[in-house]
């Protein structure tokens, strides 16, 4: 007769097999305990209360943990408890896998706290006289199936740290990556100091978050301009600069981005008082060209048709090889590239919004320099890069600028006069993407420009005050950028025989964040007309995705698998591309 397991609170009853581990049965039934040390009985985070049923004697480790924590009776580690008879267990809330929300507002999505880097403290005992195990074995053997690192430098360090002075028992902390690799052994109990970095490596802007891997909380954020911008505003110019010259220009590009990141990391550590040594992992979400340049891999294949990448999925690489100023024994994980220019920023973004698990048809757009679009139809996804260009980031526009203090991000036309708002309410000194969209939409609405984009005023200028204006050429740049995105959406939809009406939602990510005025974006054709309730603004989804990948190891596996399955569409190769694109230049709403 199979033993029955009853789970409190709630009272769910399940049939188990005799001898099965309680943690496994609970996991399979959808009750996620914090199995921090990977079921090795070391971390003490999966204690449950045996309400009714056999209560075997605790193991040595268990007893030590029970005593240290002063836990009440009948508590046993679920990872070590085998079900032998009908049992009733109560799951204390502190033993459940903590969940963190991925977004602060907008869409709800949370992930379980299961980071790749874990710190577990334990007592290292003096080896016995007759058959003394080696030092590193002592450290490693606590972790069933764990491997020592391959780096000789890491081994030297570890042997140094794990040494027992005066040959006495000592407490140490093992730093373990993906439940397998022993990265380091630290003296004493350092489990309280376990941090990671989530990095959005954008073409123009770079954002770094420092995250507490114990709580999942973001402790601090720093943002800066990508140091490579002096080589070119867009990814293509940088690739062109590096083309055929990896030794000098390629290396210079790499140094520029790594130095820039290190400056942000240093600033963050200073501000938060966290030592870089406590950071054992950084997850980087960047587009394909950026992550290649960061690692110093050649980008020549991205420069010419068919524009293919050097890699899509990489194992976590040693931090010391990347030049990032975190613990050199740590790792750097690069969010996987999908194909061609559609890269890790997108796979991270899809992870953040968990698109794969949302039933239905969706479009995900990342409105940045590259304007990537992903279309999900049922279970399948396709992606394309629209090369919208930097117009939406304020570049190539006469009085355009990035979304920084002083940028006009919102504009309204009231009784013939322009009323604008600037970022940080600083004196207006330029117009950023969302401001440009507002101005074009309202100029169209009030008949100051034709749907073909022609400025009717004989001066060929739309002045908004403060010495700021749009000229004819600026309108054309915005038409081109909007047409690129619009054509991308239309062609992807047509390619899968879908219409806007078939969509269950559109996710908009990217620099615009919350500033984008949907009505105006729709009026100029940048986004299709769709029920407002179906539009989701998710801000910097790449950064949120990087954080999700940092905090949840199984999400990486899912992300990699998904990245491999997403089809790529080359829009420019489409038969109707020219016709669609030319038509899309018209400023008008569509669906």
């Amino acid at each position: 007769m199979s033993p029955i397991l009853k789970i409190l609170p709630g009272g769910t009853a399940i049939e188990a097999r005799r001898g099965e581990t309680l943690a496994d049965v609970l996991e399979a039934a959808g009750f996620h305990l914090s199995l921090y040390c990977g079921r090795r009985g070391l971390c003490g985070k999966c204690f449950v209360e045996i309400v009714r049923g056999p209560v075997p004697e605790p193991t040595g480790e268990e007893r030590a943990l029970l005593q240290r924590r002063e836990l009440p009776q009948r508590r046993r580690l679920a990872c070590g408890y085998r079900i032998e008879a009908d049992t009733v267990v109560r799951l204390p809330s502190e033993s459940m896998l903590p969940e963190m929300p991925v977004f602060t507002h907008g869409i709800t999505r949370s992930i379980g706290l299961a980071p790749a880097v874990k710190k577990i403290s334990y007592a290292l005992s003096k080896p016995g006289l007759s058959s003394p195990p080696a030092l590193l074995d002592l450290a490693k053997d606590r972790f069933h199936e764990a491997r020592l690192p391959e780096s000789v430098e890491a081994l030297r360090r570890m042997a140094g740290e794990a040494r027992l002075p005066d040959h006495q028992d000592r407490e140490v902390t093992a730093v373990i990556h993906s439940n397998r690799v022993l990265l380091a052994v630290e003296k004493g109990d350092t489990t309280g100091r376990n941090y990671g970095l989530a990095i959005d490596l954008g073409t123009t802007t770079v954002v770094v978050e420092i995250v507490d891997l114990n709580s999942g909380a973001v402790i601090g954020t720093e943002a800066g301009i990508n140091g490579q911008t002096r080589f070119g505003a867009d990814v293509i110019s940088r690739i062109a600069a590096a083309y055929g010259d990896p030794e000098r220009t390629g290396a210079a590009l790499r140094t520029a981005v790594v130095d820039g990141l290190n400056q942000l990391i240093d600033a963050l550590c200073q501000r938060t008082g966290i030592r870089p040594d406590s950071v054992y992992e950084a997850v980087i979400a960047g587009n394909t060209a950026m992550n290649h340049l960061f690692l110093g891999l050649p980008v020549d294949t991205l420069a010419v048709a068919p524009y293919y990448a050097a890699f899509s999925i990489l194992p976590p690489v040693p931090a010391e090889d990347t030049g990032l100023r975190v613990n050199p024994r740590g790792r750097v994980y690069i969010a996987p590239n999908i194909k061609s220019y559609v890269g890790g920023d997108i796979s991270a973004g899809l992870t953040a919004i968990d698109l794969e698990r949302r039933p239905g048809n969706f479009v995900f757009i990342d409105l940045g320099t590259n304007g990537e679009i992903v279309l999900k139809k049922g279970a399948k996804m396709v992606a394309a890069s629209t090369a919208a260009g930097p117009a939406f980031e304020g570049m190539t526009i006469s009085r355009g600028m990035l979304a920084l203090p002083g940028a006009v991000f919102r504009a309204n036309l009231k009784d013939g006069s322009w009323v604008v708002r600037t970022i940080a309410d600083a004196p207006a000194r330029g117009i950023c993407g969302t401001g440009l969209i507002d101005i074009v939409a309202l100029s169209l609405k009030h008949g100051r420009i034709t749907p073909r984009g022609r400025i009717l005023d004989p001066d060929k200028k739309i002045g908004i005050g403060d010495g700021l204006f749009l000229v004819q050429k600026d309108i054309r740049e915005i038409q081109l950028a909007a047409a690129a995105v619009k054509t991308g959406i239309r062609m992807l939809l047509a390619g899968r025989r879908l219409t806007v009406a078939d969509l269950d939602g559109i996710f908009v990510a990217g620099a615009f964040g919350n500033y984008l005025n949907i009505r105006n974006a729709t009026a100029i054709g940048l986004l299709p007309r769709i029920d407002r309730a179906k539009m989701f603004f998710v801000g910097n989804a790449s950064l949120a995705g990087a954080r999700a990948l940092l905090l949840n190891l199984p999400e990486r596996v899912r992300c990699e698998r998904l990245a491999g399955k997403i089809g790529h569409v080359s829009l420019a190769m489409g038969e109707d591309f020219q016709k669609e694109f030319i038509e899309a230049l018209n400023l008008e709403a569509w669906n």
Partner: protein
Amino acid sequence: MNNPNEILALMAEAVVEGNRDKAASLAARAVADRLDLHLVIENGYAAGIQKVGELWEKGEYFLPELMASAEAMKAAMTLLRPALESSRGEPSSEGKAVIGTIEGDIHDIGKNLVSSMLSANGFDVIDLGADVKLGIFIDRAVEAKVDFICLSALLTTTMLNQRRLIAMLHDRGLRGRFKVLVGGAPVTRQWAADIGADGYGENAMAAVKAAKEIMARGAKP
């Protein structure tokens, strides 16, 4: 019956409006009525394209308008060219060209516009498409005995292939046989000069102008 000047004005108008049907039907009438077709092209349709160029420069006209005008012009030329040829007894063409987007590059809207405009202006154009291997450009140019090779490139990386093609022409002893015209977003007059190209066009209108100038320079006395 409209007086001749009125008809020419209507033809120009058809091109400026991008009205293909109007342009074609006026051309058909011109042929049927045995009007002086050179004048029809010069003062009628070409005058229209000239106006389109001015409107483009002023920013009044953008890609859609340009495309539509080029198409209207092409529609008229399709009817006028055969009639011209049969009356003169020899093929009338401003010149012959192969055009394509260079190897490694798939962007072709700009190139298509230049191709249309050259056709509209009386050139014989063989459009090789996009991502055209350098060898193919040269082979087809030799085969069709063209006057020039037009190369479009959108990226600074693929632009480098324009220089390579000119070098290839040198290697094959063919440099003197063809004129090379280059263009594309990153291409500049300076670049064209640096690589030894014969001409440069920053947009479709300029490309036609450059092509005509090259042909005029090379015209035998």
